[in-house]
């Protein structure tokens, strides 16, 4: 078989047409609408230039806070999910009792509905009768009983913590697959050379799972930038004006109030951010990639 044989370009035509019509074109139209005054209150559509973008970046509005919240959420949850996921993956690839049960328990939150998790945690984190504060009070740690979801200082952290709890099992599972694919020969050779646990991790495991970590990072970043249901169920953007508001809850609310143009402008801004973040991230993550 001739390995150099390439398929003709028109083989890709079907996929390209479908992608163009159902993905690219709607996106382009969406960006186009962000330059209009499209709203539910009027049948008329007028070109307004960069008016909606001026609103998005205006200091009188809180859209910049919403964009910052989204980026913070993405960065913090990505880092912590990867770090905690990696630690758990390393622990759960050792020979320990009931290994699969442990893996199953950590993975379980990932298969539950985010909305249901949100509802459950709303109850757990209730300051008065929630499970967490009741526990703290029962063991004499009253000082740790906080207003987790209703204080401006703690709400965002609480939302991120619940999201990390939910998503870490999924990341762990991917990383376990990555770790298990590393040949045991490397570890045996390293052991003969007198390498300790940390050195094995630093010089064998970590470089060889970098491609897997790149995958988990991409997955986390995409999820983080598009996060909606967790925030919606836990705080709906509150307490206050926009303490935990993220881009998609804001877009949802703008569409809900019929202010489509500003909603599409917000989406367009995030689209541009996603492109830059995506290109930069893939470059960084693949730069030192080690091929086994």
């Amino acid at each position, binding site marked *: 078989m001739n390995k150099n044989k390439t398929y003709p370009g028109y083989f890709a035509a079907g996929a390209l047409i479908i992608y163009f019509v159902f993905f690219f074109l709607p996106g382009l139209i969406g960006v186009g609408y962000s330059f209009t005054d499209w709203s539910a209150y009027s049948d008329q559509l007028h070109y307004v230039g960069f008016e909606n973008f001026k609103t998005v970046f205006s200091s009188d509005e809180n859209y910049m806070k919403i964009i910052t919240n989204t980026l913070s959420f993405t960065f913090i949850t990505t880092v912590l999910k990867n770090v905690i996921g990696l630690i758990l993956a390393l622990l759960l690839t050792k020979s320990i009792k009931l290994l699969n049960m442990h893996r199953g328990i950590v993975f379980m939150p990932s298969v539950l509905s985010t909305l249901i998790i949100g509802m459950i945690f709303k109850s757990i984190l209730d300051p008065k009768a929630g499970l967490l504060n009741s526990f703290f009070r029962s063991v004499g740690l009253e000082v740790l009983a906080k207003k987790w979801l209703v204080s401006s200082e703690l709400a965002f952290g609480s939302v991120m913590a619940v999201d990390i709890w939910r998503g870490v099992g999924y990341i762990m599972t991917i990383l376990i697959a990555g770790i298990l694919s590393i040949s045991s020969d490397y570890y045996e050779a390293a052991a003969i050379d007198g390498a300790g646990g940390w050195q094995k991790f630093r010089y064998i495991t970590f470089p060889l799972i970098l491609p897997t970590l790149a995958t988990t990072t991409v997955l986390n970043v995409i999820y983080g930038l598009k996060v909606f249901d967790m925030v919606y169920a836990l705080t709906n953007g509150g307490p206050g004006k926009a303490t935990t508001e993220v881009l998609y809850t804001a877009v949802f609310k703008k569409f*809900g109030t019929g202010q489509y143009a500003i909603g599409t402008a917000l989406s367009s801004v995030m689209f541009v951010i996603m492109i830059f973040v995506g290109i930069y991230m893939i470059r960084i993550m693949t730069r030192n990639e080690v091929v086994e």
Partner: protein
Amino acid sequence: MKKSLVASFLSLTMILGMLSGCGQPAATASAPAPAADEATAEEAPAAEETTEAADANEDVTITFMASQDWIQDAEMELGEKFTEETGIKVDYQIVPSDQYESLLMTKINSGECTDIFGGQSSKFSIVTQFDVEKNAVDLSGESWAGNVEPAAAEELSAGGKLYGQPIQDVSACWAVAYNIKMFDELGLSIPTNYKEFCDVCEKIKAAGIIPIYECVSDGWHHVCWTEAAVAATKADPGYPDALNENKATFEGNKELTTMFSQLKEMADKGYMGDNYMSNQYADAPASIASGEYAMVLYNQGLGAEVNAADPSFDADNIGYFVNPLCDNQALNVNYCGPSRFIFSGSKNIDAAKKYLEFMASDESLAYMTENVGKFNQLPYTNAPSAYSKVVQDFYDRYPEKIAVFQASVKYYNPAWMDIGADMSAMFLGEMTPDEVLKDIDKLRAEQAAAASDPAWK
């Protein structure tokens, strides 16, 4: 050769299957196009319609989406009876109140709303927010339409046509409900101004009881305190009209500034306890029944609800006085309230109309009045009256009635949840009362601009 024949045959079958699948809706498309539906319904001979409906009803399920607390257990019980009688099933979709408005508007604006949707009535916002002339079905010709109280019908009408059906008792208003026995034991009397109200709260607090049950997390209840804005109307009866003509603003209004400042003060002084940001509206009756709280801003059905939560608590042990912010002593009346609308894009308009007709029947209205504590007088001429002495005393005590901003000021009701978020920020110290008022002006201007309101040009 054989293989390719089989493949060709299978491909042909698949294509035909797909085409027939695509063709399916066209076969049924003769039914329910939104606008055509009414005309078809009117033109069709009655006998034929009945026979067809009887057959069709077997499979008809109408969907009804509403905010939490808008659909009572009694209504769902009636819904079961309706299904028994007509064969039409009703799928109730009850949405948490803090998420309802966004969800409803998204569904309406995307053209994918439920057959019946719940929405707040108001002659202004049903046009600016719901665009009922486009999104709802004209109900003027329905048999029950003439029974709706004129004041309530006005808030559900646009261009002389009735578009909605009231769900709740709109004679009830948001007033401070209090534990009568507790007041007697502490030697307290009904306050007649804000200072007296604070004195009452201080005495209750000193007795180790939290004075007011407030629930900010629902997103809407704490905004009900702003109905004390009737004080601004009393100070200047032309103020609502000036707001509607864009000749006045919320920012800088003396009464409104006082109202928000007093609310913030109540929270800061601990009159609402520690958990007012996370409390939930649904827990209010139980919280009052437990004696942990003395008062709550509520409608005139709290007594029955507290009694339901704790049968040892007498329903008549709950009294009412008007919201005393800004020293208000007028009854804050609002003939607007949650109402049922039929979505114009529904494929089950006839079935939805039958449901509305069933709910407005003498029997259904009597059943709702008997079984829902806060329903004393539903706004229909054929509905029974069931005011208790305590409630009647309350209405008699305040002869002066002033319409609340929800009913008298344009673009106020649609901004309700946003105002709630601003107030929540005010309680957290992120916004000042002046900033909240300024933001209300901004929210109204945004709505007005989107609606191309000439007064804002």
